[in-house]
């Protein structure tokens, strides 16, 4: 097929970006997939022999099963907590008046742009044994000995909730925004009560946002690295921190690559599943 001049121009304009992505994204991804089929011998290093050994280890070894379970647990819990906080907050913002609405929207969403490590450091200080929270609790006489918050699943969930809250508020807020206020007025004029307006009009409108927010938060929480690494420490491992260990401490890169691939599959798989199951239905009216 020959391209007319009108079609060649746009293609040319894409060449630089596409070339970059081909060389530095697609190719490395393919190489890492190959890496996962290699093996690692202590003292020798990476041995390029193709085998399923790494895959078998990740699937059947109880240690890795526990890792994936931890990751799933963190993902699901964070998604739920974020939903429980984010949905009401989006609704509160939606009901606010003009200047406050913008101000608090930025207060809630702004931290998104502030360094993740800095925010996690904040939680580290807040939750530590001699941390702000424990000092306050002990001063108030609630507890005598400091409570161990850090290096546990709850600490990670708190940190991730803080980091990912905007990803829940944004889509719900966007869905609510699409709703013209005249629709709410129409519902009131037809005799609906505030409760009915919420459950019959507002909640269904927010549903696409709720679903996509939950999905995104789950997927980001399950693949997060910095927060579990800092707040989970050496005690509570998830998949991403285990990958880091394999690559940076144990140096078993093939195994690390295999674990990473599983994480990639889970992450992409859940997004695709979501698209198939839910989004199609809602797309018709949203």
């Amino acid at each position, binding site marked *: 097929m020959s391209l007319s001049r*009108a079609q060649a*121009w*746009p*293609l040319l*304009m*894409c060449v630089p*970006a*596409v070339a970059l*992505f081909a060389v*530095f*994204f697609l190719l*490395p*991804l393919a190489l*890492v997939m190959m890496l996962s089929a290699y093996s690692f011998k202590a003292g020798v290093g990476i041995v390029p022999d193709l085998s399923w050994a790494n895959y078998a280890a990740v699937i059947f070894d109880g240690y890795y099963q526990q890792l994936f379970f931890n990751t799933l647990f963190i993902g699901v819990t964070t998604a739920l907590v974020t939903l429980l*906080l984010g949905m*009401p*907050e989006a609704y*509160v913002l939606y*009901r606010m008046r003009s200047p406050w609405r*913008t101000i*608090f*929207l*930025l207060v*809630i*969403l*702004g931290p998104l*742009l*502030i*360094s*993740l*490590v*800095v*925010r*996690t450091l*904040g939680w580290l*200080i*807040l939750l530590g044994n001699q941390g*702000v929270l424990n000092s306050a609790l002990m001063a108030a006489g609630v507890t005598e000995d400091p409570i161990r918050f850090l290096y546990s699943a709850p600490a990670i969930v708190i940190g991730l909730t*803080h980091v990912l809250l905007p990803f829940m508020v*944004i889509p719900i*807020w*966007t869905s609510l925004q699409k709703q013209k*206020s005249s629709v*709410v*007025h129409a519902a009131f004029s037809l005799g609906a009560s505030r409760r009915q*307006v919420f459950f019959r009009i507002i909640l269904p409108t927010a549903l696409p946002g709720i679903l996509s927010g939950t999905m995104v938060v789950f*997927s980001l929480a399950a*693949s997060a*690295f*910095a927060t579990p690494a*800092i707040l989970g420490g050496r005690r509570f491992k998830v998949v991403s921190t285990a*990958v*880091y260990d394999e*690559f*940076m401490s144990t140096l078993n*890169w093939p195994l690390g*690559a295999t674990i*990473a*691939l599983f*994480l990639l599959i889970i992450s992409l798989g859940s997004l695709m599943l979501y698209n198939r199951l839910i989004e199609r239905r809602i797309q018709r009216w949203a």
Partner: protein
Amino acid sequence: MLRNTPLSLAFHTALVTFVMAPLITVSLVAFTAESYLALPWSGLSLRWFRSVFADREFLASAWVSIQVAVFTATLGVALALPAVLAIGRYQFPGRDAVNALLLAPIPVPGIVLGVTFLRFMTQIGWNGTVAAMIVCHLIVTIPFVVRILLAAIVGLDKSIPQAAQSLGASRLAVFRRITLPMLASGISGAWIMAFLLSFDELTVAIFVASTSVKTLPVWLFEKISWGLDPSACAASVLIIAGTFLAMLILDRIYGLERLLVGKSAES
């Protein structure tokens, strides 16, 4: 007609506190006079700021971060803009594939990208260089640049450049005199966004960094992991202040609300 009840406002206050708490804590601890992480009850001091400014590694990593972020943002916009113009304006074979490819890194977990780059950059012998860091950050940030630019271009009326063409403007003149000025806010918004993303990026950088070339988040992460002291908080305050400045500029130029929730603030 829809109003917030006292209960919902109480919830809102609690949530805002939750959101602000870690940032405020870090900021307060930075001014402590103690030699350990403590709130500055016993007196304010700037000693940790002095200490961080005397820290060679901090300064070096800040300089690397700025370089990487500037190059990432500039190259990212320069590479993404033509592609986005093509995708947003024209119908051509492979258009959807190009679009999908440029957005593809978004759902890929950072840790996966990190090990991918580590392996590849080691194989080609680039690991631990500023160039490698920039290339990796390009892959991470370009999808977001594409998103912002695409939104800006799709919002543009197609007939405006057509009108310019009919008045005798060449392709280049249309780009320089019509498209570029009309996209100015989108382009600068995308640039600052890419800068911030790169400046804050940890997960990929930690794999590509070396002892001599590391970015600020990597420095901070290592500091937190081994030998945390209030100087980390002082550095954090500097980072927060810098980010605020960038956010202010971003708001002026592009509108933060538009950037974050995809809508113009007042319309």
